[in-house]
């Protein structure tokens, strides 16, 4: 596939060459076949620094087609630097349609959030992963962690949770909360808040994880069990918020804290900007939303 003929073909469609895409697709297929298993792949250098989503971008570039509709979020927001740059990148190199509406997207590339709106069949969620190995900070040797995955020796993961309870009285891990996929592999769900962990369980969408610097791809196919690790007497719990979103009044969503002044003023707003807007368009109002009509552009979302 080449870029449209009326422009000079500067890039192959979706930036990566076809052989590279084929290699990444093979890795993705293997990852889907073994849910939660980290498949090594020959990660390429991308025109962005490591840590900006080079893994996610390569996965997206390998699966995107001309008919796809792409949505990119960064911590839930469509309007932050990382999301805007990656969206612009794919507009430029693949000429695909982009959207900010979760329901309209066929591919959602995300940095550290899962959209509030439940994903549907046929959608693909691509995660940008900094460190794919959940055991890394407990066992620094890669040879040893691979062996532990192979032999299903996951006692060490509970040592971390034990330490949390011993020090804080409860499991204080709030992000990158380890999960067990389909009863076999322990997986790092990338640094998403643990609030999002239940959304991964039996999700109807395909979930792909790409770690560019660490050269690993892993996946959770649709309708797969994803269980958060816990203790019998300290079961897994998600974060709870005392107040609703200050703009849309939404409850049961993940909220960001925004500092308003240096007098201790703060507000809590939806981290998922698209969800917040749709609620405001539907007439929902939080206590700081103002009286005028619903904001028309995402720049007023105010998550920064």
């Amino acid at each position, binding site marked *: 596939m080449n870029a449209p003929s009326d422009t000079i073909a500067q890039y192959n469609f979706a930036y990566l060459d076809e052989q590279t895409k084929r290699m990444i697709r093979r890795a993705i297929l293997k990852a889907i076949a073994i849910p939660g298993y980290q498949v090594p792949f020959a990660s390429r250098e991308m025109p962005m620094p490591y840590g900006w989503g080079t893994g996610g971008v390569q996965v997206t570039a390998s699966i995107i087609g001309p008919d796809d509709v792409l949505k990119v979020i960064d911590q839930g927001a469509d309007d932050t630097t990382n999301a805007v740059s990656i969206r612009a990148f794919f507009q430029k190199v693949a000429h695909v349609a982009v959207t900010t509406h979760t329901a309209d997207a066929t591919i959602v590339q995300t940095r550290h959030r899962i959209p509030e709106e439940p994903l549907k069949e046929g959608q693909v969620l691509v995660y940008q992963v900094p460190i794919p190995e959940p055991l890394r900070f407990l066992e620094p040797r890669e040879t040893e962690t691979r*062996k532990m995955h192979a*032999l299903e020796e996951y006692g060490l993961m509970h*040592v971390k949770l034990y*330490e949390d309870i*011993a020090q804080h009285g409860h499991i204080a891990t709030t992000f990158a909360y380890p999960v067990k996929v389909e009863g076999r592999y322990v997986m790092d769900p990338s640094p998403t808040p643990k609030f999002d962990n239940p959304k991964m369980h039996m999700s109807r969408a395909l979930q792909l994880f790409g770690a560019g610097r660490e050269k690993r791809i892993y996946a959770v196919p649709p309708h797969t069990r994803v269980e958060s690790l816990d203790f019998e*007497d300290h079961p897994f719990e998600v974060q709870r918020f005392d107040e609703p979103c200050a703009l849309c009044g939404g409850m049961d969503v993940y909220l960001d804290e925004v500092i308003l002044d240096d007098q201790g003023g703060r507000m809590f707003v939806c981290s998922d900007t698209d969800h917040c807007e749709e609620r405001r368009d539907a007439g929902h109002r939080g206590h700081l939303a103002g009286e005028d009509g619903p904001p028309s552009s995402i720049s007023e979302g105010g998550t920064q």
Partner: protein
Amino acid sequence: MTDEPLLRVRSVSKFYGNRIGCEDISFDLWPGEVLAVVGESGSGKTTLLNCLSTRLMPTSGSVAYRMRDNAFHDLYRMSEAERRMLMRTDWGFVHQNPADGLRMTVSAGANVGERLMAVGDRHYGRIRAAATDWLGRVEIAEDRIDDQPRAFSGGMRQRLQIARNLVTGPRLVFMDEPTGGLDVSVQARLLDLLRGLVHELGLSAIVVTHDLAVARLLSHRMIVMKDGHVVESGLTDRVLDDPQAPYTQLLVSSILQV
């Protein structure tokens, strides 16, 4: 006690290239028995211990272990998964340097609880109760349970390592110079503790040491090694009181008298 040994070692040899680590070692270890392996530095004690505990592959020979189902299994024919399972449930390994056997960056309680979690215990309260119990048995104060081993003295670390190994109720414990690097009064306490635990739990143990006093206090039987070979073996008191091989005579006569 049954009339079958726990561990059956037959002609175990380990060569490092042309150099001998240990050669043609055979013995039986019986349930509840403590065997000391003594000899000078470089005599192959630790090589032998590592071969027996499957941390090192011997060049030739076989080691059969009687599992809880009373069947003998050749350790080197087991899958790695089975061996690792054995090492963290039915066996213990006490390193000379506690830092090698402990996780220095997690608390004492988690160190003791790790083996329980590794075999599938998922109840925090029970794990913590077991950890508290074991810290008490190795004479570590209960209020140190959330401290990291980094904050412990050498003797405490060694005792913590022992608790960590014994929490799953192993039947066989390997010890590599368990009292090395400790001062004599701490050594005496640790030996006292070890002797009590071994007796109370009916453990079998293989203790590698260069210190004949440790062998005398802990072990029932000993083998004396020199240059990778066994030069003498027998009941500890017999070997120490009536050494027969010239090397053993030399070794016994070189103990410092105070």
